[in-house]
């Protein structure tokens, strides 16, 4: 009896060991490493020098522009995503004909899994000098600058993250008990008040999941501001690439990264609070 129990534990351990090692070596330890770096000092030649100082954190305002751009454009971008995504998710979950639903859903999932680099490139191509501006020049509108503006970055954000916003909202709307909608109508509610009181309210967990996921990924975004903002719209991601790969100030970069993670955690906690207060389920299926 004891032998079989031992064997059972051994099998469980062996099953979990590779994943546990992977998580510890490539997630937990690296995170501890940047936490240590963030209270260190920059060595004269650009490496790391052991120290215990909060000078790196005190220096954060030096990158205030990057923080400001990210903190303004990430929530605006997530909100814009949400406004476009909700009607689509609503249509897919409650209005679309059955035989179309799966096809349309697949058409949302596919862009989510295709290269963000290539999809951002598409807009660089369209907004760039030889794209829309060249077409507009034919009809007499000259010198219109589309690319390398905050507007282009915002467009890229909505384009890139729309699928990620649609999916969780779709999931929460699809699980909605249709009888509630009928009951609401039977009790004399107008379509608008049914929507506000039942549909919207019950889909809020999905909305919060989508919003917080998009928001967190946007906080670390690098490709979209680089390609569509052309070095004019700097995000925290750009600051991190600069500090780690170009100017090589790793301790300062680590302090920024830790701050980024802390902000993400705060976003997650707030979103979690809101959605648990409103309802239970929060699971997302990404496929």
């Amino acid at each position, binding site marked *: 009896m004891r032998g079989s129990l031992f064997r059972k534990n051994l099998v469980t351990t062996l099953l*979990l060991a590779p994943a546990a090692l992977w998580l510890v070596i490539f997630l937990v330890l690296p995170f501890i490493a940047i936490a240590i770096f963030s209270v260190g000092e920059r060595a004269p030649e650009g490496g790391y020098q052991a120290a215990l100082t909060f000078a790196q954190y005190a220096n954060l305002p030096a990158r205030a522009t990057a923080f400001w751009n990210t903190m303004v454009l990430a929530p605006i971008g997530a909100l814009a995503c949400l406004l476009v995504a909700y009607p689509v998710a609503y249509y897919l979950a409650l209005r679309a004909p059955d035989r179309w639903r799966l096809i349309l859903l697949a058409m949302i999932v596919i862009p989510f899994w295709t290269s*963000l680099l290539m999809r951002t490139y598409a807009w*660089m191509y369209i907004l760039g000098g030889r794209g829309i501006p060249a077409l507009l020049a034919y009809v007499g509108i000259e010198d219109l600058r589309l690319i390398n503006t905050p507007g282009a970055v915002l467009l890229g954000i909505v384009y890139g993250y*729309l699928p990620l916003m649609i999916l969780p909202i779709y999931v929460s709307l699809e699980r909605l008990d249709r009888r509630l909608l009928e009951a609401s109508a039977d009790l004399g509610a107008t379509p608008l008040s049914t929507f506000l009181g039942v549909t919207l309210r019950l889909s809020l967990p999905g909305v919060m999941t989508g919003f917080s996921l998009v928001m967190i990924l946007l906080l670390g975004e690098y490709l979209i501001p680089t390609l569509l903002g052309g070095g004019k719209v700097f995000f925290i991601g750009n600051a991190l690439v600069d500090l780690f790969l170009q100017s090589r100030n790793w301790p300062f970069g680590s302090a920024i990264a830790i701050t980024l*993670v802390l902000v993400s955690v705060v976003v997650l906690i707030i979103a979690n609070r809101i959605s648990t207060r409103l309802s239970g389920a929060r699971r997302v299926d990404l496929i």
Partner: protein
Amino acid sequence: MRAFVVAVFAFLYLPIALVVLFSFNAGHHASEFTGFSVQWYGKALSNPFLVEALKNSLFIATTSALLAAFCGTAAALGLQRVGARTRALFDALLGAAIVVPGVVIGISTLVALVQLFAVVNPFLAELWPTDQPPKLSLGYGSIIAAHGLFSMALVTMIVGTRLSSLDRNLVEASSDLYATPLTTFRSIVLPQIMPAVIAGFLLAFTFSFDDFIVAFFVAGAQTTLPIYVFASIRRGVTPEINAIATIVLCASVVLVLLAQWQLGRRKPSP
């Protein structure tokens, strides 16, 4: 609302369609389509740097997806056999591996590995019997490990979902009929979770093949396809990039459709 939804789908697909269309442009300019030609595909595929980057990406994506499928499936099975507390800890770490932005995963892996190599390499030099000790550095290994982190978490999630909907009666019936645990696993559990494992592998492959930002930090001297494309884009937009983008997009679409088909398959009846 119908019109709005149609407009959103157009918004999602027109830019991609335009990139694909102009990859077949005979001329060089994006503003006018001057004729059909596949010359840019020829140019792209005869570019040795590009082919090298493509090979690297295929190797890295295959290896990290295989490792992720294997470790992720094992973890999903193992998590069925542990207490609530261990499970919650794993779920939190796996969730973090998925949600933490690629930039942060990239730099923290970079920092940790560079420190680790600085400690390990002198040791290796000391202990190695010959004059040329192996020197650990960033490259294939670090990209595979960093991609594998996200992918493994993804596979664990997908397979775990499938396991939780597994028909327990079949497992019990199998052991009532005196099948050994291994036989039960092979003939009951494995066939039912296999579609999820395959889907997880395909998505892991797609992720690794498409990822730019994590690889950008930990690639060292290596180049992957997205890193190469990023560098080319910054030098200027050419139809050659459209050709590469078209190939990559087609590959992703095929892989994702395959994954969805696997996940949608009805469980095989035993």
